[in-house]
Every structure is written in structure tokens, then in C-alpha cells.
């Protein structure tokens, strides 16, 4: 029962051992800490960088161009904003050179709210990220998906952004969602791969033998089949939407929940099939609502599925305010909550044209 952060760590280990990862680096990524969320503990290629996000992204690009296989961490996505021109550069490397170069790198970074992160540890980046062509963008909602998507990100010859919902990093896998090869007992896994408190200089992890289980970039996962409404979501909102959907079962409302998993290039086939079947769409995410990635999904739905729709497609997203306030009431008023999501699901499912 690995947590998401343990799953990422195991994937990076597999990356180092079998997929050619040369550098896992960023602020506090190397020993002794192994990452502020512990994602990089015990990795043999992990190293600490200067506190300089532009340097981190720039160096990752340079490493990639020299044929290395870097995974760079931005400690919190809130601090990636001053690198956007470098992200554009990485995303445009192949295109601008008309295919002369490629730029194989992974940027991993924790995103979103839900840990009382206040203004600067709660930002989302999905809208911004999907506005930078040339990147593939993945966002897992379970440890197993985090593991498989990280392997695919490492293997991909293009820049891949791995957005890790920070509120889920310490959440455990649901039963049946284990990573093959991980020990059944979570305490045993912790003993094997979590660095001990105190002096770690003599510690080495005991990695479980986990397989090359790639989860393909561009494939959504239908978390819950349903008849009345399609909910498209990703990251932290997947579990929230699933719970809201379950609440509605007793009322006879049957909601389909799709975890997009990859924001770009996204799985339109799965979405379209579902929307045409349920005739109703709700998109849920945490990012600020104006120029939100969900708006794109809705635009495409309107353009391609207009005549099958039984209700207006709807977006539930974060309030368009500069940040997430620290106090609970402020956070709850800023990002979609379960009750509000359930209410919207009910309204949409029962809406009659």
C-alpha cells in the first residue's frame, strides 16, 4: 500500500536502474533530505541544486540536449512561474529546429491546495501548462498511476510535466490498486524505502522489485461507470468527485467519473464516447476558472457533441482570485468542495431541456 510519494520514489528508482535516468535534481532533492515531500530519498542520482528555478529548468534542458535523462523537481509549482519562458523553450526545441533536436526531460512538481498551504503553496498550473505547446502533461490521482505515469514520462522523448497533487502525496492506495511487487504490509515498505529519522549517512534503501509498468500518456481512466452524467476531472478532485457521485446513488442518480490522467495530449476518444452516452458534462478542477483547461473541454464538447447534449456543459473550478486564503473558510470558498460538486451533479443530471 504505497503512498503516492513512495510510488514516485520507486518509479524514479526504476528509472535510474533500467530507463537511463541520469539526474534527479532540484532544491533539497539530494541527501540528506531527499525532497521536502521525500519523493527522492535514497536515489543514487539525486543531487541538490542551488535555489534557482531558472537554473534548474535551464540545466535540465542542457542535460537533455546532451543526451542525458534528467528529472528536475520544482519544489512547489508556485515557484515555477519565473521559468515559463524556459518551459516554452523546452517545449519548442523540436518544433523551432524543425525536428533537428528533441528535448527529453521530466519536470515534477507538487500542485494544488488541500494542505493548508495558504497563498503560495496552493497554486494550480494545469491551465498554464496546457498553454505551453510541446509539453506532455500528466497528473496522477493514485499511487499506481503516479508510478506508471512517471515511468512513461521518463521514457518519452519529449518534455513531460508531472504534476503531483500535493494533498495526495501521503495518501495510500485503495485496496486492489497496489503496485505489483510492493510488499503487502505498508510498515514493511516504509522500513525498506523511507529514510530513517536522524543520521541517514549510513542508510541505503531496500527497493522492492517492481516492474516496468507503463501507464500510457494520453489514456484516461474511467473511475466509475454511470448513466446520467459524465464528470471529467483529474488530480485531487478525482476522489472528491467519486465520493460525491456515490452520495447520489441512493437518489437514483448515476454519475460517470473519468480521471483524465493526461492533460495533454488528452484522451478525447474516451471523453466523447462517455459524453455522447450520458448527454451531460461536468468538468471539475482546482485551477482558477478563467481560461481554465476545463473550458477547452467544454468548447470541444459544444463543437462536436452539441446535438446530443441534454444540459449545458458546466465547469466547477477555483475562484478567480490571486491565491487560496489560509483560513479553512477561505480555502473552502475558493476551491470546489464535495457538497457543492454533489449539488451540481444532481442539478445537471435532473436538468430537462
Amino acid at each position, binding site marked *: 500500500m504505497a503512498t503516492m510519494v513512495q510510488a514516485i520514489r520507486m518509479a524514479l528508482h526504476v528509472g535510474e536502474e533500467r530507463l537511463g535516468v541520469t539526474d534527479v535534481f532540484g532544491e533539497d532533492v539530494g541527501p540528506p533530505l531527499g525532497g521536502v515531500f521525500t519523493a527522492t530519498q535514497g536515489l543514487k542520482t539525486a543531487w541538490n541544486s542551488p535555489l534557482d528555478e531558472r537554473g534548474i529548468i*535551464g540545466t535540465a534542458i*542542457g542535460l537533455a540536449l546532451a543526451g542525458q535523462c534528467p528529472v528536475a523537481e520544482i519544489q512547489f509549482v508556485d515557484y515555477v512561474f519565473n521559468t515559463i519562458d524556459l518551459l516554452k523553450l523546452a517545449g519548442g526545441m523540436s518544433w523551432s529546429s524543425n525536428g533537428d533536436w528533441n528535448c527529453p526531460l521530466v519536470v515534477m512538481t507538487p500542485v494544488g491546495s488541500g494542505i493548508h498551504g495558504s497563498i503560495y503553496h496552493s497554486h494550480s498550473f494545469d491551465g498554464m501548462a496546457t498553454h505551453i505547446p510541446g509539453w506532455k502533461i500528466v497528473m496522477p490521482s493514485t499511487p499506481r498511476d503516479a508510478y506508471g505515469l512517471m515511468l512513461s514520462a521518463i521514457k518519452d522523448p519529449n518534455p513531460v510535466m508531472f504534476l503531483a497533487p500535493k494533498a495526495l502525496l501521503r495518501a495510500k492506495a485503495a485496496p486492489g490498486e497496489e503496485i505489483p511487487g510492493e510488499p503487502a504490509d505498508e510498515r514493511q515498505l516504509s522500513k525498506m524505502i523511507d529514510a530513517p529519522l536522524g543520521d541517514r549517512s549510513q542508510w541505503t534503501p531496500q527497493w522492492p522489485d517492481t516492474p516496468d509498468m507503463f501507464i500510457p500518456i494520453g489514456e484516461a481512466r474511467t473511475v466509475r461507470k454511470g448513466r446520467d452524467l459524465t464528470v471529467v476531472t483529474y488530480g485531487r478532485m478525482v476522489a472528491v468527485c467519486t465520493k460525491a457521485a456515490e452520495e447520489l446513488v441512493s437518489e437514483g442518480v448515476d454519475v460517470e467519473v473519468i480521471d483524465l490522467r493526461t492533460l495533454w495530449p488528452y484522451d478525447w476518444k474516451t471523453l466523447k464516447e462517455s459524453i455522447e452516452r450520458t448527454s451531460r458534462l461536468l468538468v471539475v478542477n482546482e485551477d482558477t476558472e478563467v481560461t481554465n483547461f476545463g473550458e477547452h473541454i467544454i468548447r470541444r464538447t459544444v463543437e462536436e457533441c452539441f446535438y446530443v447534449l441534454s444540459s449545458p456543459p458546466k465547469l466547477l473550478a477555483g475562484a478567480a482570485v490571486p491565491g487560496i486564503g489560509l483560513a479553512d473558510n477561505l480555502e473552502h470558498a475558493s476551491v470546489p468542495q464535495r457538497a457543492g460538486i454533489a449539488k451540481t451533479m444532481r442539478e445537471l443530471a435532473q436538468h430537462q431541456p
Partner: protein
Amino acid sequence: MSTSSYQPAPRSDAEALDDTTEKSGNERNVTSADAALAPELLVRMHDLMLKARLLEERLIRMQKQGDGYFWIGGPGEEAFNVPLGMLVDRGEGVFHDYLHLHYRSSATLLAMGADPVDALRQMKNVASDPYSGGRNFAGHPSIRKWNVVPVSSPIEVQYSMAPGTAYAQKRAGGHGITIVTGGDAGTAEGDFPTCLVWTSRPGHELPVLIIVTNNQWGISTAGATQHGEKRISDRGKAFGIKCMTIDGNDPENSYHQIKRAMDYIRTERKPVLMEAMVSRLYGHSSSSGANYVQEEADCLMTFEKKLEERGILTRAHIDELRAKYTQELLDASKRVREEAQPEGSTIYDHVFAETNIVGLAAAKSRATANGRGN
């Protein structure tokens, strides 16, 4: 793929770099210790400088005649950029030099052996432009087989990427270095100190030749109105980086100083910050008119005078060369004018790479290196 032909320099050359930085400030000029360059080398250097100048003048002409939308380039920097290109260890992969250039680097590419016609193609944005297929401005090359990283318009970003290629080179062993270059005004961006910090981490110093070509302008803004530091190269001192400011208008001096810096970097695997004082002979770009500036030193003219005085070249020979290259470039530009534009339908090509081109190249160069016991 060629293998590196580099032979480590005699130790005394690297030491010479040490001497002057402390004793006489950063300024470096040819001293009696510098052996005179062979006449054949001077003739070759002149040939490239002249060709580079005429290429830029042809590009300017093309833009003015409507055979291109924008011109930016490096006329006035030939005395620095040509020796730089001649001294590059050209090739693909970490055992050769990586170049993170900017939009004034055409003379460096010519000296490395680039075909001037390719620069004309990029000016005319034709599909045959090998640097970008008609996607990018003139003066924005990309040559993967020679480790020339795509030049992009945002000022200074190359200084943030340079540590990455150098990190790979240091890890690989060998003598390959990373060369990064840009202008003086751009050093105000954060990427410049990024490069200083990341190349001088204790125990992880990186083999980078950090060049600043100082023409004392950023478009219309005089450097002195924005920068309080006496020398840009002084900024390297705080990081323990060897620094020097050189007269980049003198190709012999440039050759010696670049060679000395490169020898140090190739063997010591540590950075050097080199500020080269250069001229900007046609203004910033076509946006500012691209007309010849009388007030600034013209390195080509000065060098030609010197070569004549020394009896190495005659005026008649120089005039003949000039006429020949002018005609060749004119003819080439006429041919390029007839080449096809890229199709609009190709805009989605290469958004994503299908294969790991750079990874495969790295594997190949590793295999070659192992083969020769590197």
C-alpha cells in the same frame, strides 16, 4: 562522426591565465609570451572575416530588398567570432564542444565550416532552411550534428542552459567544453548569475567558456547608463571564476586569449568568464536601419591594414577576394529566392519528437569513446 582532435595544452599556458587576472586586472592583450601566429593562419582568419562580413552585408541587402522580413547579425564582431569558431572542437555529443550562441554568431559558424547559403535560406524563410525550415528569423541557427543548440530570441536564456551540457561533459570525461555567448545588456538578466553560480559550485565546477561580447549597447540604451560595474568580467571574481576582458577587435589577440582560456577549461574542467570588447557596425538590427556606423572601430579594416603592412596580403588580392565573394553571395541569394516556402500544412510537424534523437546520439558517442578507450 569525427573524434576529438584536441591535444592538452602545455601546463604553462593554463598558468599564464592565472597570472594576469590578479596582477594587472582583467585586461588581457597579446604579450611577448604569445608566439606570432603563422601567416597561413592569419590569411585564413582574414578570409573568414571577410566572408562573414560580406555574408552579413548580403543578408542586410536581402532584407532591404524585401527578400526577408528581419535582419539581425554580427557585423563588427568578426575579429572575435572567427577565432572562436576556428578553435571550436566541432562534432556531435559530449566529447566535442557545445555551443549556446546568440543572434550575432554567424562568423563563428562560418569559421566552423557552415555553408553561407544556409544563412541566406533562413533570411528568405524557405523550406530548405536547414536551421528552422523557414520558422525562425535570420541569425537563429541550429546544427545538432555540430552541437550548435538552437538559437532563440529571448535574451540570455542560453546562460541557464549551458551548465546542463557542461555537466554532462564533465561527467563523461574527455576535453569537450561548453561555450555560451551573448551581449552585454543581457547580463542584467538573472540567467547570467545563474550561469556563474551553477558553473562554480564547489567540487562541481563546470567546463564552460562564458563569453560576453560587449558592444556597449542594448538596442538604443548605452551600457554605461544602466551598469555600475566597471567590468562585466569583474562579476566572475566573487565566484572564483577566472575572468578576463579582451580587445575583441584584434583577431590575433582574440585567438590567443580564446585559445588560452579553452586550454585551461579543457584540462582543468572549470569555467572562464571572457568579456570581449567589440563593435556593432550596422546598428542593432533592421529595425534600427542596419546602416554602417562610421564612429566605431572596424576590425576588418584594421586587420587588413596590418596584413598589408606586414606584407602578408596585398590590397589587390583583398579587392579580388571581396569581388569574388560578393558575386558568389549575390548569385546564391538569387538561387535562394527561387526556393519554395514551407507549406502551411506543415505547422504541426515536429511539435513532438517521435524518437529520442539526442539520446541515440549520446549512446553512439559513448560507444565511439569506449572504442578508442576514452
